[in-house]
C-alpha cells in the first residue's frame, strides 16, 4: 500500500513502568502482592466537569458501576484513596529526567502534578496523577529524525481482574507504580517505521537499567490517521511484533469505512432515532440470546448488506456496534445481515422486518438485556451508525492480540485535567543525572568477543554488568553462555528459570573461576540453582577422563561380556561420581568412546 499517498500519520506513545524501590506517591514496593481483602466504591463525575464536547466522560458516567478493589500487604492507604499522596518519588523523577535527556528533550523548570480524570474504576481516586517533565526532543531512526513531543511521569493504574455486568474488580498492587509516557510527534508515515520507532525507544528505555521488564510492563499506544479519515487512538499494544500490523489494519479499517460512507450516500441511507421494543417477536424464540429477555431494535435505512461488511480481518461493521453494546454491559448485538442464525428463525426475522417496516435494502440491529442498558447501548449505536454517513469517527480503540482493534470509548477531551493540589510542584534544578551507554553501543562493543546476536542479547540483558565484570576474568563466550545462552536453553526445555538472578549467576561464575566446577558443569549448576536458588555450588572439580578410565578398567569383564550394552550400568557408576559437576551428555559421549576402545581392543 502506498502509505504516503494516503496521508498516513502515526504517532507512537510508549508507557514504560520504572523499576523503582517505591511507588510514585507512597512508600509501597513496586511489586505484585497477594490479594487478601476488598472494599468497593462508586465513582461519580460532577456534571459541571463534563464539557458538552467530552463524550468520553459522559459515556463513562452512563456506564457507571460498582468497583471492587482487592488490597494486600504491599499496598497502603494511599492506593485506597484513604490518605493524601506523598511527595513525588525523587528516584522516579531522576529516571524520567535521564530518559528525557537520552531523547534529546528540553526539561520544564518546575514539574506540576495533574489529575487526569479517568472514571472507569482503574484509579481509586477517579483520576490518574500525571506530570509533564520534558518536551520537544527527537530520536534518529533510519537516518531520519523523529520528533518526541512530550515525556510525562505518571502513576500506573490498577490491574483489572474481572469485568462483570454492573461491576468490575481491580487489584491495587499495580496502582501507583511509576510510569513514563513518551509521545512522538505524528511524523511517522509507515507501519514499518512506527515499529522501528517503538523498538528504538524501547531500547533507549532499557539502556537505563531502571525500567521493569516482562509482560505488561511496557505498553504501546498508537495514534493513526489518514487524509480523509480521523485520528484514532489505539490503546495497549502489548507486543512490539504486531505494532506494524495494527497500523496496517487501522488504515484498512478507515479506508473501508470511507467506502461504506460513499455507498451509503449513494443509497441515501438514513438512521432513525426510534428504539422499538420487539420483545414480543421473540417471546417463543429458540434462541437463548433473546429468549426471555427484553429485546429492542433500531432501523438502519439503506444499511442492508453493509452492517455485515468486513472492515478488518474477521471484524465487520456490526462488530463495531457489538463493541459498543459490550461497553454498556450487554453480550453484543445481532443484525439482520447475519440472520437467520443463532437459533433465530426466518419467520422471526420476517416478523421483525414487518414490525419495523424494513425494506429489502435496510438493516435492523437488535439487542437484548435489561431495558435501561439496552436503551443506552442502542442510543449510542444510533449515534455511531449516523456517523457512518460522515466517515471515520475519532475514537479510542483497544488493540486485540491478532492485530485488529475494538471500539473502546470516544476520544477524551483535554478539559479533564486539573492540578493535584495535594502534591507541591517540584523544581528540576540541580537534579543531576548520568547518561548511560545505549544497549546498541554496548552490543557493538561486545561483538568484538561474541557473535553479534549473542552480543546484543547480553548487552540487552539485565545482567550485562556481570558480563562486564566476569569477561575480564573468564573467557567472554563462557560468561555469555552462563548469563544468556544456557538459561535461554533451559527455558526452552521447559525448566522454570525465574529463580535465576544475579546471585545465582555469580555463584556459577565464581565456581568456574575458582576451579570448583568445570565450565562444562555450568548447565548442571544452573539447573540445580533454578530449582533451589539457595544451593551451594561448591563441588570440587573432577577429572571425568580419569574417572571413566578407572571405572572402565575395573569393569573390563562386564564390557567383554555385554559389549556396548554395558554402557547403561557403567554410565550409572560414572554419574554417581560426577553428577552435577559435568554435563551428562559429555559424560555419555566420553564413556561410550572409552567402552568402544575396550571392545575394539
Amino acid at each position, binding site marked *: 500500500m502506498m502509505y504516503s499517498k494516503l496521508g498516513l500519520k502515526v504517532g507512537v506513545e510508549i508507557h514504560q513502568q520504572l523499576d523503582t524501590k517505591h511507588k510514585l506517591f507512597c512508600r509501597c514496593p513496586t511489586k505484585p502482592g497477594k490479594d487478601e481483602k476488598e472494599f468497593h466504591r462508586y465513582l*461519580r463525575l460532577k456534571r459541571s466537569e463534563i464539557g458538552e464536547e467530552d463524550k468520553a466522560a459522559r459515556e463513562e458516567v452512563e456506564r457507571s458501576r460498582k468497583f471492587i478493589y482487592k488490597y494486600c500487604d504491599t499496598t497502603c492507604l494511599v492506593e485506597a*484513596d484513604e490518605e*493524601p499522596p506523598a511527595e513525588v518519588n525523587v528516584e522516579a523523577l531522576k529516571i524520567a529526567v535521564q530518559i528525557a535527556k537520552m531523547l534529546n528533550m*528540553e526539561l520544564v523548570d518546575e514539574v*506540576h502534578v*495533574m489529575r487526569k480524570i479517568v*472514571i472507569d474504576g482503574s484509579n481509586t481516586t477517579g483520576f490518574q496523577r500525571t506530570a509533564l517533565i520534558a518536551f520537544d526532543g527527537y530520536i534518529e531512526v533510519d537516518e531520519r529524525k523523529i520528533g518526541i513531543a512530550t515525556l510525562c511521569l505518571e502513576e500506573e493504574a490498577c490491574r483489572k481482574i474481572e469485568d462483570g455486568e454492573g461491576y468490575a474488580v481491580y487489584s491495587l498492587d499495580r496502582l501507583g507504580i511509576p510510569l513514563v509516557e513518551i509521545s512522538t510527534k505524528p511524523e511517522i508515515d509507515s507501519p514499518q517505521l512506527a515499529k522501528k520507532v517503538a523498538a528504538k525507544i524501547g531500547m533507549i528505555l532499557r539502556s537505563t537499567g531502571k525500567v521493569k521488564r516482562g509482560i505488561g510492563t511496557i505498553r504501546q499506544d498508537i495514534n493513526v490517521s489518514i487524509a480523509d479519515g480521523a485520528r484514532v487512538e489505539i490503546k495497549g499494544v502489548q507486543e512490539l511484533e504486531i505494532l506494524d500490523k495494527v497500523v496496517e489494519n487501522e488504515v484498512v479499517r478507515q479506508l473501508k469505512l470511507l467506502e461504506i460512507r460513499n455507498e451509503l450516500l449513494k443509497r441515501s441511507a438514513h438512521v432513525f432515532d426510534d428504539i422499538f421494543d420487539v420483545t414480543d417477536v421473540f417471546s417463543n424464540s429458540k434462541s437463548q440470546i433473546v429468549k426471555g429477555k427484553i429485546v429492542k431494535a433500531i432501523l438502519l435505512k439503506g444499511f442492508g448488506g453493509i452492517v455485515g461488511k468486513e472492515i478488518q480481518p474477521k471484524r465487520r461493521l456490526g462488530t463495531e456496534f457489538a463493541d459498543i453494546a459490550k461497553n454498556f454491559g450487554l453480550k453484543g448485538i445481532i443484525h439482520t445481515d447475519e440472520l437467520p442464525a443463532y437459533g433465530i428463525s426466518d419467520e422471526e426475522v420476517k416478523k421483525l422486518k414487518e414490525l419495523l417496516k424494513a425494506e429489502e435494502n435496510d438493516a435492523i440491529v437488535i439487542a437484548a438485556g435489561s431495558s435501561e442498558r439496552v436503551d443506552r447501548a442502542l442510543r449510542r449505536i444510533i449515534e455511531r451508525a449516523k456517523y457512518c454517513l460522515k466517515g471515520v469517527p475519532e475514537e479510542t480503540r483497544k488493540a486485540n492480540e491478532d492485530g485488529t482493534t475494538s471500539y473502546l470509548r470516544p476520544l477524551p477531551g*483535554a478539559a479533564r485535567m486539573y492540578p493535584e493540589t495535594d502534591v507541591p*510542584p517540584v523544581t528540576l*534544578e540541580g537534579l543531576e543525572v548520568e547518561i548511560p551507554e545505549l544497549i546498541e553501543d554496548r552490543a557493538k562493543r561486545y561483538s568484538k568477543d561474541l557473535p553479534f546476536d549473542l552480543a546484543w542479547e547480553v548487552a540487552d540483558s539485565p545482567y550485562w554488568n556481570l558480563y562486564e565484570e566476569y569477561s575480564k576474568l573468564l573467557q567472554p563466550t563462557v560468561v555469555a553462555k552462563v548469563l544468556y545462552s544456557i538459561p535461554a536453553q533451559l527455558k526452552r526445555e521447559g525448566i522454570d528459570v525465574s529463580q535465576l538472578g544475579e546471585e545465582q549467576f555469580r555463584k556459577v561464575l565464581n565456581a568456574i573461576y575458582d576451579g570448583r566446577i568445570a565450565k562444562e558443569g555450568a548447565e548442571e549448576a544452573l539447573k540445580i540453582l533454578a530449582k533451589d536458588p539457595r544451593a551451594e555450588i561448591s563441588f570440587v572439580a573432577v577429572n571425568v577422563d580419569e574417572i571413566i578410565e578407572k571405572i572402565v578398567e575395573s569393569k573390563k569383564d562386564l564390557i567383554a561380556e555385554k559389549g556396548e550394552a554395558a554402557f547403561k550400568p557403567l554410565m550409572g557408576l560414572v554419574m554417581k561420581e560426577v553428577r552435577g559437576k559435568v554435563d551428562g551428555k559429555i559424560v555419555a559421549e566420553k564413556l561410550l568412546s572409552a567402552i568402544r576402545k575396550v571392545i575394539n581392543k
Partner: protein
Amino acid sequence: MVLGKRVRIRAKGKIFEGIAMPSFTGNFVLKLDSGYNVGFKEYELLEVFEESLPKTEIKKLEKKDGLPNVKIISTGGTIASKIDYRTGAVTSQFTAEEIVSEVPEIAEICNIDAELLFNILSENMKPKNWIELAKRVYNALKSYDGVIITHGTDTMHYSSAALSFILSTPKPVVFVGAQRSSDRPSSDAAMNLLCAAKAAISDVGEVTVCVHATTSDDYCFLHRGVKVRKNHTSRRDAFQSINARPIAKIDYPSLNVEWLSWRLKRNERPLDCKAKLEEKVALIKFYPGLSAEIMEFFHSKGYRGFVVEGTGLGHVSTDWVETVKRIAEDSVIVMTSQCLWGRVCDRVYDTGRYLLKAGVIEGEDMLPEVALVKLMWLLGNYDLEEAKKLVKQNLVGEIEYRSSY
C-alpha cells in the same frame, strides 16, 4: 494581570500557548492545551488573548409536591464546592440548584433550600460561630422538616456537640462532611449527603453526624452529636461513636435505615435555643511531668471551667492536688480520660480519691471535647453550683450510665 487569561509565551526556545495559572513558587505556570500545567523560570510574554468564557447554565429547581422540605446550611466544608478547571480555584456559591446538579438523586428524597452561612475552614471555627450557626438552624427548624449542616470534618464533632446542648430540637439536625473533597470522582461527599438527606427526613429529634461507616461506599452511620469523634486523619470512616452505638445505619445506595440504639424521636422535644457560651473554659491534656502551673495560668486569666484529660481512669500527678483544691473553690473541674474509651472512676486509686476530695468532678464516659463544650454551655447559662450539678448529669445523650460491650 494575565492570570486566568490565554497567553502565548516563549520559553526554552519554544513557543507555548495556554492559560496563565496562579503560582506559589515565583515561576510562571502555564496550563497547556493538553491540560498539563508546567512551570518556567524564564519566559517572554508574547501575547495576551482576550476571550469570553462560556457560561454553563443551571436549570431552575422546581419543588416536588409531597416531598419533605430540608434546609442545607453550609459552613464552608468541601461538600458541593466546585473547582474551576481553568484556574484550579475552588469556588462555592452553594445554591440548591448547584447541589442538585451535582447530586441529582437528592431531589428524589426531599425539596432542598440551601444557604451559605460561613466559608471558613473548620479549624478556624470559634464558639461564636457555633452560636450563630445554632441560631440559624433554630430559625430553619421552625419551617423545615429537617436541617443538614455541611461542615469541615476537623472540628465537626465540636460543632455537633455545641448544637446538641444549645438546641432542643424536635426534628433531625444532621451534620455532614467529606474526607475526600467533592472535586474528585471518588469523593465521599455525595454518598454522605444522600444518607444525611435521608436522616434529615427520618424519625429523629436530635443533633447528629452522618458520615461513611467503612472504607467502602456501602453505608453511613448516623452518630449522636455528643458521642462522636474524628479518630483518623484521612480515612472516610474517620468518625466513630465512642462509648455508645451509632443511632442508625443508613445503607447505600438503597438508603434503607436500620436503627441501632435508642434515640429521641421526631417531636419528642419542644423547639428551644439557649445560645450562650462561656468561652473561658480550658481543656488540659495531662502528660507525665506537666506542672499544675498550667491551671494556675488559666485561672489567673479568669477561666472558671476546666476539663482535664487525665490518664487512665482519670488521673493527674498527685502534686496537682493542692492546686486543684484551691482552684476548685470557685471553678468547675471535670475529669475525663485520654483513653477516650471507658468511664472515669476516681475511686479506685489514692490519687483519684485525693482529686475527688480536692473538688474534681468525674466526667463519667463523656468525651473530653464534649465535656469542654458542655461546660462552656453550662457556665454560659447557669450559675457555678448548678453547673457543677448538671455537668455530671446526662442532658442530651452525652453520658451513658451503663457501659455496654
